[in-house]
């Protein structure tokens, strides 16, 4: 058996999604901007996809939802264009974000700092979320934008987006949320919260890689990131990626229809897995369950180094992650574990398991058994579980490494 538990990194494309995109490669391939029937033949399917996305997010017809190539593009677009529109060409100088954002927000912010923007990186509390009053306390009359993720890719913790949205509205500050880990996993109702910009990516909810979107409330101004042939109403140039747009529409519809039911089913499996793993001694899971995306567990196993654990899980055909998969090659300490102030000894012991609606009960059973076996093996090797203590003077110094 092989078990894929890295669905916060990416997901399997739902076969139903593959089916709807199929005709748009070799049958209906015209450029939607062309006047001839080859081009216009794709219009009904694109319109449908647009409707599906608007409906899934409960967006108003006055809002724009612009298809992009991915959430990295959406995040960069908002940050860089707000910088240009309100800081370079305006009287603002400040952006607020958090320490635990995805690299596409953090790295973009650092790039903007080099160009003269002031950026505040807000800390998270012991649950791994930013508290609204902290956001409020850092807003000044020079603040152009607040950017806070909707849910964490690493912990699954859901951020108080409604409260932060109210604060931003009251203060007259634009509010962007990276919704990559929320859209398709938990209800996202854009009439119930005040968000000016929302980024999302199809491959996180069983759509294909290479297509995402940016929601723009009330079609408000935001200068384009990509200039060109004035596609998407001039907001985002580049020939429309028809099959992928169609796929994203179908994928978001499948993910959000009866979402409460789907969440309950995933949550039941997740909770069963979590309970079983917590039976192991010296383990803890980051963040309380009720406020987490229903598919995610970030568990720390004392004495077991994360990459070593991934290795053993991989040997058992189980795909998991130590944290952000995008950065998994550098194998550094889990930044969120450090940010929540976990014991630094545990910063290298985090394992993230993320389920999907395709995860089965038998996969959970298999994972529980194999996970426990791996922990047992690695703890037998681990120095923290050794009985014979070092010769006097042979103890280790405290860690001098940077993180």
């Amino acid at each position, binding site marked *: 058996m092989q078990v894929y538990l890295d669905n916060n990194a990416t997901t399997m494309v739902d076969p139903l999604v593959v089916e709807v995109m199929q005709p748009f490669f070799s049958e209906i391939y015209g450029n939607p901007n062309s006047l001839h029937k080859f081009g216009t033949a794709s219009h009904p399917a694109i319109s449908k996809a647009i409707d599906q996305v608007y409906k899934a997010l409960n967006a108003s017809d006055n809002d724009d939802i612009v298809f992009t190539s991915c959430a990295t593009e959406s995040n960069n677009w908002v940050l860089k264009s707000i910088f240009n529109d309100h800081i370079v060409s305006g009287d603002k100088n400040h952006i607020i974000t958090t320490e635990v954002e995805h690299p596409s927000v953090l790295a973009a912010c650092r790039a903007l700092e080099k160009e003269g923007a002031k950026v505040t990186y807000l800390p998270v509390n012991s649950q791994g979320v930013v508290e609204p009053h902290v956001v409020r306390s850092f807003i000044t009359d020079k603040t152009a934008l607040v950017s806070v993720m909707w849910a964490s890719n690493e912990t699954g913790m859901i951020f108080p987006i409604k409260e932060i949205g109210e604060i931003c509205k009251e203060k007259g500050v634009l509010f962007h949320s990276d919704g990559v880990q929320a859209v398709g996993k938990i209800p996202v109702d854009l009439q119930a919260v005040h968000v000016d910009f929302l980024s999302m990516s199809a491959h996180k909810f069983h759509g294909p890689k290479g297509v995402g979107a940016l929601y723009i409330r009330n079609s408000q101004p935001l200068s384009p990131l990509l200039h060109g042939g004035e596609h998407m109403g001039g907001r985002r140039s580049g020939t429309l990626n028809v099959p992928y747009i169609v796929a994203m529409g179908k994928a978001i519809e499948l993910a959000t229809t009866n979402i409460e039911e789907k969440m309950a089913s995933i949550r039941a499996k997740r909770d069963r897995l979590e309970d079983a793993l917590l039976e192991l001694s010296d383990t803890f899971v980051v963040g309380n369950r009720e406020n987490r995306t229903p598919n995610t567990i970030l568990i720390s196993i004392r*004495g077991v180094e994360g990459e*070593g654990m991934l290795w053993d899980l991989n040997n058992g055909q189980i795909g998991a992650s130590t944290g952000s998969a995008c950065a998994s*090659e550098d*194998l550094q300490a889990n930044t969120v574990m450090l940010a929540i102030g976990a014991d630094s000894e545990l910063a290298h012991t985090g394992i993230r398991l993320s389920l999907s609606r395709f995860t089965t009960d038998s996969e959970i059973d298999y994972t529980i058994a194999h996970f426990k076996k791996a922990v047992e093996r690695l703890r037998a090797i681990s*120095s923290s579980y050794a009985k014979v203590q070092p010769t006097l003077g*042979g103890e280790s110094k405290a860690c001098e*490494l940077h993180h």
Partner: protein
Amino acid sequence: MAKNDLLGASLWDAYSNKVTTLMNNPNHQGEITEQEAAEHGNRLIVADFGAESCGDAVRLYWEVDPKTDIIVNSKFKSFGCGTAIASSDIMTELCIGKTVKEAVKITNIDVEFALRDSPEIPAVPPQKMHCSVMAYDVIKKAAGLYMGVDSESFEDEIIVCECARVSLKTLQEVIRLNDLTTIEQITDYTKAGGFCKSCIKPGGHEKREYYLVDILRDTRREMDEEKMKAAADAGSKGSFESMTLVQQIKAIDAVIDENVRQFLIMDGGNMEVIDVKPTEEYVDVYIRYLGACNGCASSATGTLYAIEATLKEKLSKKIRVLPI
């Protein structure tokens, strides 16, 4: 960055079969108790290196025969990734049968080499090379405990890049001999900085005492100073033409200060050197008169000849003074 870098490396696929095998089934993991060692009439040494907060920690056990100083048995415990476990395992194997003094000579390079499947292919990808360094460090520590000396005493030179074991002295020499100007060149010549990258600049995986950026900057500065000094020395020996432009201007100023300026000031004037331009035939010194000299009839005749004659005498026959 080029074609081969576009798709990030598949880290685990770069491990040798030996690394994989030992990670899955280490031969020497476990502990040696005081009692076991005593039963054999041997001494037990247990040393730790690293810490869990670093992401890597290793504990080395040695059973040493006190009569021969030979390590008769060795085991390890490790909190770490696959390469850390495999490195620790091969380290114990390399220790067994050696005297403590011989074991101290085992370096991380030996550990990595012992993990290779074939001599020319590295056992681990560059960023994992650092895991083997801990094996080297913990051996030194154990030897220090056994011999009752500070483990630092086994290191007779300053190692800047631990992964490739490149010393400060080697780096300084290579920079000088090959006139290196970039970190990339240093890595090409010495391999330093090519692995975990901690030694390149502050802020990497590990805090270091010496960084390549500082060594490069300081060595380059020393080289520049030496070059200047050499030029200045040459100048003092009379070869004005071999001086740098700045040195030439300074030398001209010095001669004028000493021999000319005071007379001009007495008459309410002054002058300044604007530029120096060496040509095939001459070294043209452009000057500007100030104050009363400006417009004085003598400034284009007598005074000018006097200035030129002085400079010719003191510095170079090729000097031609041109007022502007």
